Structures are given as structure tokens and as C-alpha cells.
């Protein structure tokens, strides 16, 4: 493996050559929203369409077999990327959000009284730092079934408050679903104590890995959770594909979610039987080209090495935390140490609304995200209407962080009142 060289890596990403705002180099610091794509991914997708495009799983013709092999090959790559015990544990969805909804709806479809069913008296536990995609599906499930939604709170430095874990995760808890790495705070949550407690009380544990899987090695068997969701577009892959991994025994037990082609075994007008996992959960024509792109992204990440990527991003994060401390009137929302935190840094500037921060930075070519980052309860918790967030990827450089900090200086001058 060649040494990690960020300048070499940047050459793989065509968009990074782009200029914005009248000729300024693009400084893309919005990677937690979506990542850019290397040429290798774009080439794989284009090759697929120019050579092998066909629908999958039912073809006896050459293109159909090639398309199926490519699509199923992407499943193999994904399974080994997260160290799944079996390829059939990997279900392709449209995004992480669908993956979580799939779990919530399939559980909602479980026959009342069955082991998976939830109802009045049962509890679902989430946390106050979840993305809306890991809040709303459980609110809806609770509404449909009469179960109760509860949540772990946060400490002032942006960590999960586990002091009352044993009370909140109790014998009534059927499901715990929480985020591995927060998209707004950057916090990396400890999985082990939650899994241990969940095992004691017999609850299922689902992990939202949308922000962790793209940035460091994740091993589902080592984590010991029951399901993990993540999303292609944040890990150098195309939009339009999400991944649900779940233990095979759970996928076997879960009733289906979406009904349609591909997910059936036998259909009569009156009733149907369903295919084995993963196909049982993949109704309709799947995201074929998107899976091919995901496979290419996983190859690209693996070639560079997830550990090397994690190390690079940790260095950038540390550099940024230091640099931001030099900006007057700037408050970091989330852990302000590098310990158990990833490269997604939210902050507030006194008296200046994030919208104005982001807008002015854009005129200097610096792209950050502003808003509640689909985690409004975190904003409420920290008493801000919104935050400005800079988030990193394997191609982020210290020069880009310098540009951010310089831009923040301009922001202060321009909006100071």
C-alpha cells in the first residue's frame, strides 16, 4: 500500500478542480452532507451503462447475466467491507433513511404477539443526537403501535448522557436505535455499553452508521449489533443507494416491507410467498448502477485503506479544532477534543446567524453547511437556532482549513454590528 498522499488523492476527484464565486478554488467542507466521487466510481457507472446495462436476476441473456454478476458482486464487496458473516445479510435500499424505515415498518408488520411485535407498554429507545431519519420512523412506529418512544439525553460537551442508561434501557425496551457518529456534533458514541445492556434486557440494537462507515473501519460482528444502516452517497458512491445490514436470523424473522417484483417466491392473486433474504427486502428493480458505483467506491476506499483515511481525517480534525479556537467569539457545539469524535465540526459565531456565515464563506469558495443538519433536537438542546458545520473527507487539506478560518475572519468584519 502506497503512503497516504492527499494531493495524489485529490487528483482522483474531478470536482475538486472546479472554481466557484468568480474563479475561487472550491473548498468543499460539506462532506457530512454528501461526499464527492472519484473518477473510478464515475467510470464504473458509465462502463456499466455502456456495456452491461440490463435488468437483474431473471435474464438468461448475456447483458442480464453480466448485470446480475455486477450487482451481486457489489453485495459481496459490501459484505466484506463491514465484515458481515454472510452476503445475504446485505440489503440494498435507496438511502439510509429507507433502511431505518424498513426496520420500523417490517417490525410494525409483525403479527401481534409475535416476538418482534411492539405495542402498548413496549419502549423504543433513541437518543437526543439522532438525525431526523432515526427519529421520525420510530415516532411513526410508536404512533401506529402504541409503543412509547424514549431517548437518552446529552451532556454539555455533546456526549451521550449514559448516567441513566439502566433506567431508560430496561425490560420494557424492545428496540434501541442510535447513531454511531453524530452528523452535527461529530461525537463517536460508545457502542459496547449500550449493546451489553441491551443484551441483558433482550432488546434489539440498531446502529446508524451513515457517518461512521465512510470514515473508519466498521466491523459488524465486532460491534455486536443487530442491524447497521449506512448510505452510499456519503462514502464516495452515487446517490440512490443505501445499505441495511442485519443478522440473517433477524432478516429471516422480519416480515417483508415493500411488496412487488423481486421480493416474492410465488404470487397468486389471493396471496404470495416471499423470497429469502436479501431479496425479500428488495422489491422492484434495484439500484443496479448505483450498486456498481458503490462497489467501485468500496474498492477505492479499501485500496487506500480505511485506517489511513481515519488517521488523515483525525489529523485534519485536530488541526481544525486548534484553528477554530483562535477565532474570537466562536463556540464549538460538540466535543472540542479529538477524543472519540470524527471530522464533523459544528460551531456558532456570536451575533451572526449561520445563514450569513455560510453565505459569505461561499463568496470565498468555502462550502460549509448551515442549518439544523436534520438534527433539530440537538440545536434545541444547545440553545441555537442552527449551526455552521465544516465536515471533512479523505481529500480535505490543511490549506482548506486555513481558507475556512480566513473566511471566518471576513465574516466577522462584514457582519459585526
Amino acid at each position, binding site marked *: 500500500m502506497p503512503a497516504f498522499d492527499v494531493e495524489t488523492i485529490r487528483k482522483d476527484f474531478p470536482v475538486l478542480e472546479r472554481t466557484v*464565486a*468568480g474563479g475561487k478554488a472550491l473548498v468543499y467542507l460539506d462532506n457530512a452532507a454528501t461526499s464527492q466521487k472519484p473518477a473510478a466510481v464515475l467510470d464504473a457507472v458509465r462502463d456499466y451503462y455502456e456495456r452491461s446495462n440490463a435488468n437483474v436476476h431473471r435474464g438468461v441473456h448475456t447483458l442480464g447475466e453480466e448485470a446480475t454478476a455486477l450487482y451481486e458482486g457489489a453485495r459481496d464487496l459490501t459484505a466484506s467491507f463491514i465484515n458481515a458473516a454472510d452476503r445475504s445479510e446485505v440489503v440494498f435500499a435507496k438511502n439510509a433513511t429507507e433502511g431505518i424505515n424498513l426496520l420500523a415498518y417490517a417490525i410494525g408488520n409483525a403479527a401481534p404477539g409475535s416476538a418482534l411485535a411492539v405495542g402498548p407498554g413496549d419502549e423504543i429507545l433513541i437518543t437526543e443526537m439522532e438525525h431526523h431519519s432515526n427519529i421520525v420512523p420510530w415516532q411513526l412506529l410508536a404512533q401506529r403501535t402504541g409503543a412509547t418512544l424514549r431517548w437518552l439525553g446529552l451532556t454539555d460537551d455533546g456526549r451521550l448522557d449514559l448516567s441513566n442508561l439502566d433506567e431508560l434501557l430496561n425490560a420494557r425496551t424492545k428496540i434501541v436505535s442510535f447513531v454511531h457518529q453524530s452528523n452535527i456534533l461529530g461525537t463517536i458514541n460508545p457502542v459496547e455499553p449500550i449493546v451489553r445492556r441491551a443484551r441483558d434486557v433482550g432488546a434489539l440494537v440498531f446502529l446508524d452508521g451513515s457517518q461512521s462507515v465512510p470514515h473508519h473501519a466498521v466491523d459488524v460482528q465486532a460491534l455486536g449489533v443487530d442491524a447497521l444502516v449506512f448510505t452510499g452517497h456519503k462514502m464516495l458512491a452515487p446517490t440512490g443507494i443505501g445499505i441495511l445490514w442485519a443478522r440473517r436470523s433477524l432478516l429471516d424473522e422480519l416480515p417483508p416491507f415493500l411488496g412487488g417484483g423481486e421480493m416474492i417466491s410465488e404470487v397468486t392473486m389471493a396471496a404470495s410467498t416471499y423470497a429469502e433474504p436479501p431479496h425479500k427486502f428488495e422489491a422492484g428493480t434495484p439500484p443496479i448502477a448505483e450498486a456498481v458505483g458503490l462497489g467501485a467506491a468500496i474498492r477505492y476506499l479499501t485500496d487506500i485503506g480505511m485506517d489511513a483515511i481515519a488517521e488523515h481525517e483525525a489529523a485534519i480534525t485536530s488541526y481544525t479544532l486548534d484553528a477554530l479556537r483562535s477565532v474570537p467569539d466562536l463556540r464549538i457545539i460538540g466535543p472540542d477534543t479529538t477524543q472519540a469524535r470524527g471530522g464533523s465540526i459544528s460551531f456558532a459565531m456570536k451575533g451572526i*446567524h*449561520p*445563514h*450569513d456565515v455560510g*453565505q*459569505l464563506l461561499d*463568496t470565498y469558495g468555502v462550502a460549509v453547511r*448551515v*442549518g*439544523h443538519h436534520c438534527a*433539530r433536537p440537538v*440545536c434545541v438542546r444547545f440553545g*441555537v*437556532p*442552527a449551526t455552521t458545520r465544516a465536515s471533512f473527507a479523505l481529500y480535505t487539506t490543511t490549506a482548506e482549513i486555513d481558507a475556512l478560518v480566513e473566511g471566518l475572519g*471576513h465574516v466577522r*468584519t*462584514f*457582519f459585526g*454590528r
Partner: protein
Amino acid sequence: MSQPSFDPLYQEIILDHYRQPRHCGLRDAYDAEVHHVNPTCGDEVTLRLQLDGDRLADVSYDCEGCSISQASVSVMTELVIGKSVADAQTVHDAFLALMQSKGQGEPDEAVLEDAVAFSGVSRYPARVKCALLGWMALRDATARAQAGMRETAEIVTTTEGGAAS
């Protein structure tokens, strides 16, 4: 200051209203109070309206939010206070049309006065909602005041600004 001077968004008038908002601060006398939020960015406004018959006697609001939403509500108060409901509606319609023009609008200065400075905002779909926040709140407050509903409308989300959201 190295901010590019061609910036179509942050016109001097806008920055001026942002730095020195007019009629800012909630006043006690009102017939309707509404609280509007822009759910995508967290901008919020609480706005009070006092009618005198068919005339907008006073409009007051709290002073938080981004420069565009703050300046917009400030400009608005200057434009509508003292006008009849119908005349205020005319201004409202003209401003809404301008915001939906995607940078192609020809604002009528006679009607919009300082608000023409917001022309450039219409090129930034994400900011159109900011500019409209106070205006939508006023429209809502007017309807409530006319209906005699004094109690606060706690959270009314802004509708889409017409532009791509």
C-alpha cells in the same frame, strides 16, 4: 475589507437595516401575534400587529435571525405601518412576485421603495424563504387580527416561497 463589491445579495440597504433594524422589539399593544419558523434554517420571527379599523397601526417583531430575514422584516415595517390592509396587500404581492422572479424581476420602486434592494435575493432560492419569513407572518397576523383572534399562533411553518426549495 475584501468582500467582493459586486455581491448581489448583501446590498448596502440590506446591511443597514440589518445593523439598525427599524421598529424592532415587541410592543405591548397588539391584536394578533404569530410565531413563524423557517424549518430548514432555523430562522424564526415573532410578529405583532395592531389594527386601527382597516389600517395597520403598528407592526412589531423580535430581533433575531439572519441578516436577510431581519432586514426584510425591518424594511417591511417601514413600508406597511400606517397603510390600509388593502394597500399593504399590494406591497406584499409585489414583494412576493419579486422574490419568485429568480433574478429576472423588474421591481416597481414606487411600490417597493427600499425593498427593491432584495431583488438579488431572488437568485438564491435558499434565501428567498428568509426574505419572505416576516412577510408571511404579517399576512397571517392580518388575517387573524381581522378575525378577532388575539391569542398567539404558536408555530406556523412558512409555506414554500414558490421558488425551488
